[in-house]
């Protein structure tokens, strides 16, 4: 029944397995640099929202890094689609588009969770205590699913590799810097605040940070995350269908 889903995931995980070492090392570097620069740099002289800065920062890095990894499946899809035409194998097979989207999304979630684990390891090294409960799991799963399906959508809509890079430069990077990963968005001028509350990462960061640091989870924000996830699931489905146009 779910042979298509399994097949897609089998493909992605096997390709990942062969590059696992390189990928893990590469994805562990940038959060470490942020931790050294901001975490040690500021030390505990700075407190944000009543938290030591490093405790504030680590949940932000989890959001950033898992977003990067989940969304990065777009880049891989691009290569399989445009250069090696492997994606055609999925389209020709007797499997549904839902299975393709869910298979790819599951891979995106896997990559996102892997980078999350990495940062948990850093948090131990840096002596930051986090609370990991069921609400956190719900939030991180929604967060990685949301950005994986956004990644699939983008990968299916772009015409080439260059377009993909443009999306990263103009959408993903600004989002990472503005959505409360490194500082509370409420400190932003009014006009920017309006902008960041359009970006899904803003809600992810607030919810995930709250779950990890024992704050109150805003139910509306969690609902909004689920809404984004559902929306991007359907845009991904639509975009895959459009490839056959």
């Amino acid at each position, binding site marked *: 029944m779910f042979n298509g889903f399994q097949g897609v995931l089998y493909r992605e995980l096997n390709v990942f397995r062969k590059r696992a070492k390189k990928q893990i090392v590469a994805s562990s570097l940038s959060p470490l640099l942020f931790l050294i620069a901001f975490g040690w740099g500021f030390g505990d002289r700075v407190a944000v929202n009543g938290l030591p800065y490093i405790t504030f920062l680590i949940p932000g890095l989890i959001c950033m890094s898992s977003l990067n990894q989940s969304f990065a499946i777009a880049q891989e899809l691009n290569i399989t689609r445009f250069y090696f035409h492997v994606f055609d194998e999925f389209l020709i*097979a007797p499997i549904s588009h839902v299975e393709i989207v869910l298979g790819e999304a599951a891979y995106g979630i896997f990559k996102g969770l892997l980078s999350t684990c990495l940062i948990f390891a850093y948090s131990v090294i840096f002596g930051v205590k986090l609370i990991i409960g069921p609400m956190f799991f719900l939030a991180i799963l929604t967060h990685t699913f949301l950005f994986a399906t956004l990644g699939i959508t983008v990968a299916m809509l772009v015409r080439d590799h260059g377009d993909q890079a443009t999306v990263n430069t103009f959408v993903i990077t600004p989002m990472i810097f503005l959505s409360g990963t490194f500082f509370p968005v409420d400190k932003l001028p009014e006009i920017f605040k309006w902008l960041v509350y359009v970006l899904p990462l803003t809600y992810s960061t607030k919810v995930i940070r709250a779950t990890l640091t024992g704050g109150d989870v805003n139910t509306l924000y969690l609902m909004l995350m689920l809404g984004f996830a559902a929306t991007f699931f359907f845009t991904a489905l639509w975009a895959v269908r459009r490839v056959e146009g």
Partner: protein
Amino acid sequence: MAVREVAVNVLEAEGLIKKFGDKTAIDGIDLRIREGDFTGLLGPNGAGKTTTIKTLTGLVKPTGGRICYYGKDFFSNPKEAKRFIGVVPQQSNVDRDLTAYENLYLHSMLHAIPKSLRKGKIEESLEFAGLQEYRDRQVKTFSGGMKRRLVLVRALLHEPKILFLDEPTVGLDPQIRKNIWGLILRINQQKGMAILLTTHYIEEAEKLCRSVYIIDKGKIIVKGSPDDLKKDMGGYVLEVFLEDRIEEEFFNSKDDALVRLKECGHACKIRQVTLEDVFIKLTGKRINV
């Protein structure tokens, strides 16, 4: 192969149209492939061969027309119809990062081959392709011929009823090309699988295909068996070597051609009509360009 009393239609396409923007890639194509058929789709570059294959295999949605597999509309249940289809695309689309075995295993999953049968079928395929020794090597280390053989057996793994081959030997050495043609003939003859192939190599299509469709500018110009098409042209060609070009004249018998040769006054040569002559006469183009 035994002659079938009643050959069942595997694939029927009627009035197939595909437009990209205001460019018409295929313009009202009708096709019928029966069980065990070996059919060639010939045409110059840009004639619409690849688009036809992509449309028939569900990679591209047609703008108009109907496609049926075993009498059932393709688009009302594509999942079911796709089980009948095997595809060898023009560009090898095996996964470079996976091994030969993993590529075949992936295909067996995507095509819902029962778990208990997978291993046996994959081993059989590797043997058929002569790739057993390389089963656990990543495909990126494979030569062009090895990749092509892998794509071929992968397309057969789920035992389709019709195999689409889009320029299966393009870019290969003559020796390897022959090897691939051998495999394809065996598939058609031993398994009775219908084959639809597009090719540039017209003399090979002539040898292999029992019927051919010649297409140009998205339209079918003529269809028939290579022998009938050649007979319709007359059977014999007189090549007249003029100063700046070669002129071809067609005759129904060698004797008629001889008569003309004697009165011609230029250097001449008589030969049998080839499928390429048919093609050039009909399209005004050489195919191997």
